[in-house]
């Protein structure tokens, strides 16, 4: 009995292995791969966006792309090296958490190209490394303006995941936008101290809605699921982040502050293919570069005239007439 089972099992495995060994290998020369942060490749956020950018580049330039997911912080360095050994031409680190690791690796392997999302090294960028940062405050500013114009109760809310400078860029950009649209609007801001606890996000959003806010913006990963859910239940509005989150609640997510990680990744891939890899520099993606923006689905719930105003505002930010605040200090200055 046991013997038979084992025999059958081995045969099945063998057949399958023969069948699946015939996988086609892509012959194109250039290989690009990325290491995700602990969110994983399908996080409905910047990791996924990054992967979509790579997939697009794969199609466009006939290159090979691949990814490795990280389950804990300790995975970053080994994952980088696995990709190095796999002979990639460019290795991406997705997320600021890999900042120190990737710099170390870039210095160790001067022949290998690296790039990172959400980290800037300024003067100290090694020649084989590109830092890509986004001006998250700019799309936050635009969605803040929309919120400020659309609120009927003159109260809006912001739910952050954890408080550190990157998330604060969202907060203060948003606040500036709201105050520009309407200085009388009151803004509730609360941090969940988590990027995972959806129930807490929902409780916080419920509290804001109960206190009469009618639009809540989140920059909180999985906590944001709860925020959007609360908007759905109470028939209030929410604003998504990183990607177009309208599909999560088509009638309640009025707009999203998008961070086009996909565009950035695609652009760098294009440069690499052309042989113009911008090593040693920090590339900053704002509205001007098309690296951030508001969701294309915004027209569904946001009145056209407000969107027109947003376009004007966008032009002002692009021209440099408006510099959006991104920290408590610059925001305080802005309020004057």
């Amino acid at each position, binding site marked *: 009995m046991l013997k038979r089972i084992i025999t059958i099992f081995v045969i099945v495995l063998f057949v399958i292995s023969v069948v699946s060994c015939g996988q086609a290998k892509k012959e194109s020369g250039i290989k690009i791969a990325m290491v995700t942060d602990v969110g*994983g*490749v*399908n*996080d*409905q956020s910047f990791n996924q966006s990054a992967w979509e950018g790579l997939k697009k580049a794969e199609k466009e330039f006939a290159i090979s792309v691949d990814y490795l997911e990280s389950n804990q912080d300790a995975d970053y360095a080994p994952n980088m090296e696995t990709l190095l050994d796999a002979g990639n031409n460019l290795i991406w680190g997705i997320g600021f958490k890999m900042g120190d690791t990737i710099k170390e690796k870039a210095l160790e392997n001067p022949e290998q190209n690296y790039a990172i999302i959400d980290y800037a090294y300024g003067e100290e960028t090694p020649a084989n490394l590109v830092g890509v940062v986004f001006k998250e405050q700019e799309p936050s500013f635009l969605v803040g303006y929309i919120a400020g114009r659309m609120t009927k109760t003159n109260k809006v809310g912001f739910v952050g995941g954890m*408080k550190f400078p990157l998330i604060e860029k969202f907060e203060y950009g948003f606040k500036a936008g709201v105050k520009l649209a309407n200085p009388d609007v009151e803004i*509730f801001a*609360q*941090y969940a*101290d*988590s*990027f*995972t*606890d*959806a*129930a*807490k996000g*929902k*409780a*916080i959003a*419920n*509290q*804001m809605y*109960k*206190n009469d806010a009618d639009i809540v913006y989140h920059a909180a990963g*999985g906590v944001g*699921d*709860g925020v959007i*859910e*609360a908007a*759905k*239940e*109470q028939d209030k509005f929410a604003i998504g982040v990183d990607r177009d989150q309208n*599909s*999560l*609640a088509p009638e309640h997510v009025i707009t999203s502050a998008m961070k086009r990680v996909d565009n950035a990744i695609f652009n760098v891939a294009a440069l690499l293919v052309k042989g113009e890899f911008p090593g040693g520099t920090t590339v900053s993606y704002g509205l001007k570069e098309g690296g951030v923006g508001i969701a294309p689905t915004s027209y569904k719930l946001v009145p056209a005239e407000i969107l027109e105003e947003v376009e004007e505002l966008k032009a002002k930010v692009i021209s440099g007439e408006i510099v959006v605040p991104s920290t408590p200090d610059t925001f305080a200055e802005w309020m004057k």
Partner: protein
Amino acid sequence: MIDTILSNIALIIGTTLMYSTPLIYTSLGGVLSENSGVINIGLEGMMIIGAFAGAAIGYFVGDPWIAFIGAGIVGGLFGLLHAFACVTFGANQVVSGIAINFLGAGIALFLSRMLFEGATMTKSIALDNKMPRPLNGVFHDGSFLNIIFNNQYATVYLAFIMVFLIWFFMYKTKYGLRLRSVGEHPTAADTLGINVIKIRYLAVIMSGVFSGFGGAAMSLAIVSNFRPTLVSGHGFIALAAMIFGKWKPQGALLACLLFGGAQGLAVFLGQFDFEISSQLISMLPYVITIVVLIGFVGKSAAPSADGIPYEREQKN
């Protein structure tokens, strides 16, 4: 002024109910299993697979009750696995439970990738296809009761009904007596003609069913999708709540409500700009739990045969 205070209290109560519900189901699962004499550390894993099953079935079928029951069945399958190891094969119950935790998480994500185009996150369910909200719009807008109950899902009320049913079952029916006797003195129960093996099997399977409900109460009510981090530790909190509640359904209920209430308080306090760090406020629910345990609850004792595999004397 009084209105504001009242509405804030209502909000905290509402958050408490929302937060506690998944914990209540899951800790009831723990109560059933452990009262039959089988330790169940695997609640977390069963909850994860239940949350996934609920979200996936809810998305594909579109009916919340089918999804909820489906989540229970899938949880029950993991209960069966645990029972198979612990009851039939006299496994070390802690070891098997830890295995269930790894398997539950692993299989949930694996299946998600198979069913949702490689994503470990399921697609969102429309509000109409989520659990119903029985008291939605019943009370006057903005009133005390409205703030508490307006957006509570059927799962919340069902959880309280379940606590009552389990309590009634355990303490007022002969089957409950059998369950408890199996957990306290399996040998004596056996001599009285009670089928220890069968009762333990049923209890452990039901514990999986309830954990599955607990997971689905998150993915079908609190939010409308599954993601790998959705459950993150709630199963262990439910385990703690069951022990806190001295292995009794009513005790577990109170422990879950205490924890949920502390979370509600933390959310409430979090809206103010205090001098103290929000990290310390987030710590509050866990600190309160320990303080209450020390101050008011005291010693707790598990059913005496909890954790001991039962082996029948060989009859020749």
